[in-house]
């Protein structure tokens, strides 16, 4: 399965990978010489070689269509095939974003409806579909918080509180917004420590942001008290909706006391992750923040759909209106679901996670032994004591043809194995995973070498990451002899 050649290796002068039309107008004066480029070092590859090259590369990948992919907080659920078909309709792809509004009423109507559905599912008052990724939505939410306080003349609020189990994008987004972070501790049960919050929730705090359920896969039963405390001190409660899958049809962010929440259509709403994008990260807001949403929103008046800017919008955060192609797929998904289906999804997601938790608890340390939501976080510390790290467990799973869970995150669990099965996996699949994890736990004691040397059955084996860092090789280079 070695695949060590690159595009320059299949490039030969004179080849090309497609046909192009000849010029059908009289040529004009060429541009001034000083503007022209002299060389263009792009490869020259035939169409068949090109297709074979990338097809061979695709076979080195593992996707949801390959097998079980229980990456925690990533919600790697199945991506329905027909969504891809409808997203590729020319009536959606062949639309220029500057076309007159009357010529894109179908696209605007789809966006409008999706805004409404997401608003309803989260229990908020309005939704902006503009953010193109979860982290982009986080920035939007934080800028809204900042604008909200500024508009009230409350200028001293410069700090955002987050939890010690929060994802790295959370503090990084805070920094992008020129704010500082304060970290609230978790208590022994994995919930937010109310005393810690009480002491930190001072007047310079603009908001507390919470992932709900948390990255530990836990729903904090004290959510009402938390929201009340934050609001009483003049702060806002922001939601990271990365784990919304657990709450679908069960509870609404707006009713839980959140002032805004940012979603991930590529997680909860089944749009594919694309190997690391494109995603879509809509932000939904309660009344007091609606006017600050990123522009534009789709509004409806007299039966016509229009793009509008909210009155006190934080402004534009992307070139156009968000990842429309992703919205089409999310719309297709949402329209397949009614209230009952939403509940079934969260029900099966949570059931699957709790089943894994019970079955694997005898073999792996469970730091928070209570009912979990859509994901369960184990610690590999029993195995670590025998000299086997979580990394070895993860790599060994690859030999079973299974994708490992998220590892070494959240940071407050040592040797973490954060496992999110999602609702689209069958009991048989879970049982296969459980059997593999049991065998690995046994091997960690009896046969640790097999774990240290894993994986054996993958296209490449463990990579020398230190070499990649120390001897940066980030590109190939070819020279163009003559244009």
């Amino acid at each position, binding site marked *: 399965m070695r695949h060590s050649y690159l595009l320059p290796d299949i490039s030969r002068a004179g080849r090309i990978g497609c046909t192009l039309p000849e010029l059908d107008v009289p040529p004009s004066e060429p541009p001034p010489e000083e503007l022209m480029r002299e060389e263009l070092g792009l490869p020259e590859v035939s169409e068949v070689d090109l297709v074979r090259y990338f097809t061979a590369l695709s076979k080195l990948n593992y996707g949801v269509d390959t097998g079980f992919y229980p990456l925690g907080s990533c919600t790697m659920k199945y991506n329905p095939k027909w969504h891809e078909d409808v997203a590729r309709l020319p009536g959606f792809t062949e639309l220029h974003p500057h076309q007159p509004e009357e010529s894109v009423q179908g696209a605007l109507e789809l966006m409008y409806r999706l805004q409404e559905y997401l608003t309803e599912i989260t229990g908020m008052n309005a939704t902006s579909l503009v953010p193109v990724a979860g982290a982009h939505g986080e920035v939007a939410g934080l800028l809204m918080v900042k604008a909200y306080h500024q508009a009230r003349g409350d200028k001293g609020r410069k700090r955002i509180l987050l939890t010690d189990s929060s994802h790295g994008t959370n503090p990084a987004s805070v920094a992008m917004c020129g704010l500082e972070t304060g970290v609230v501790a978790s208590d022994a049960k994995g919930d937010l420590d109310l005393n810690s919050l009480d002491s930190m929730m001072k007047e310079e705090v603009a908001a507390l942001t919470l992932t709900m359920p948390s990255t530990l896969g836990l729903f904090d039963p004290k959510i009402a008290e938390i929201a009340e405390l934050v609001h009483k001190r003049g702060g806002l409660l922001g939601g990271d909706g990365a784990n919304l899958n657990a709450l679908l049809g069960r509870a609404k962010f707006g009713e839980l006391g959140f002032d805004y929440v940012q979603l991930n259509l590529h997680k909860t709403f089944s749009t594919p992750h694309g190997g690391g994008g494109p995603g879509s990260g809509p932000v939904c807001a309660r009344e007091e923040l609606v006017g600050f949403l990123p522009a534009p929103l789709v509004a409806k008046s007299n039966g016509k759909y229009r793009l509008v800017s909210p009155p006190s919008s934080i402004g534009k955060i992307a070139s156009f209106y968000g990842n429309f192609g992703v919205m089409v797929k999310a719309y297709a998904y949402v329209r397949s679901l009614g209230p009952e289906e939403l509940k079934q999804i969260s029900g099966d997601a949570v059931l699957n996670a709790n089943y894994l938790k019970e079955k694997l608890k005898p073999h792996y340390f469970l730091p928070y032994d209570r009912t979990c939501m859509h994901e369960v976080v184990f610690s590999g*510390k029993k195995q*670590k*004591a025998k000299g086997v790290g979580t990394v070895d467990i993860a790599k060994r799973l690859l030999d079973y043809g299974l994708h490992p869970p998220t590892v*070494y995150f959240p940071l407050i669990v040592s040797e973490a194995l954060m496992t999110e099965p999602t609702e689209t996996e069958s009991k048989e699949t879970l049982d296969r995973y459980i059997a593999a994890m049991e065998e690995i736990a046994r091997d960690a004691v009896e046969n640790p070498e097999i774990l240290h040397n894993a994986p054996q059955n993958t296209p490449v084996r463990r990579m020398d*990451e*230190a070499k990649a*860092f*120390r001897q940066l090789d980030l590109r190939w280079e070819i020279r163009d002899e003559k244009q």
Partner: protein
Amino acid sequence: MNPKEYKYTKDHEWLCPEGGNKGKMGLANYAQTQLGDIVFLDLPAPGTQVEQFKKMGEVESVKAVSDLFSPASGKVVEINQSAVDEPKLVNEDPYGDGWLVKLELSDPSELDALMGIDEYNKYEAEASAEGAD
């Protein structure tokens, strides 16, 4: 193992007094083991004033970034360019060729706040036990 004439911080940096008011510092063996393959050093430029136990730079391994704290106050007089060019020296020889910074100490009495070899060995053993817990 840990050289007995060195002084140590709780953050696992060492300082080796070098006569007069000079001193050389680096990462203790425990720290380099915990970090794993070190790939990048961000050290203060010569001439920089540093303060005891305050951040003076960063050490990066493949998957972690650690702050580097100065074991004593003073001025940076030299940095180990070989280690900057080839950070794995810190993994291979943390107490020798993998030294990081030479300092001109402003207050040698500060060294009393550092651990001696016996105290540090004990401290290191406790840290290792906790890590394995």
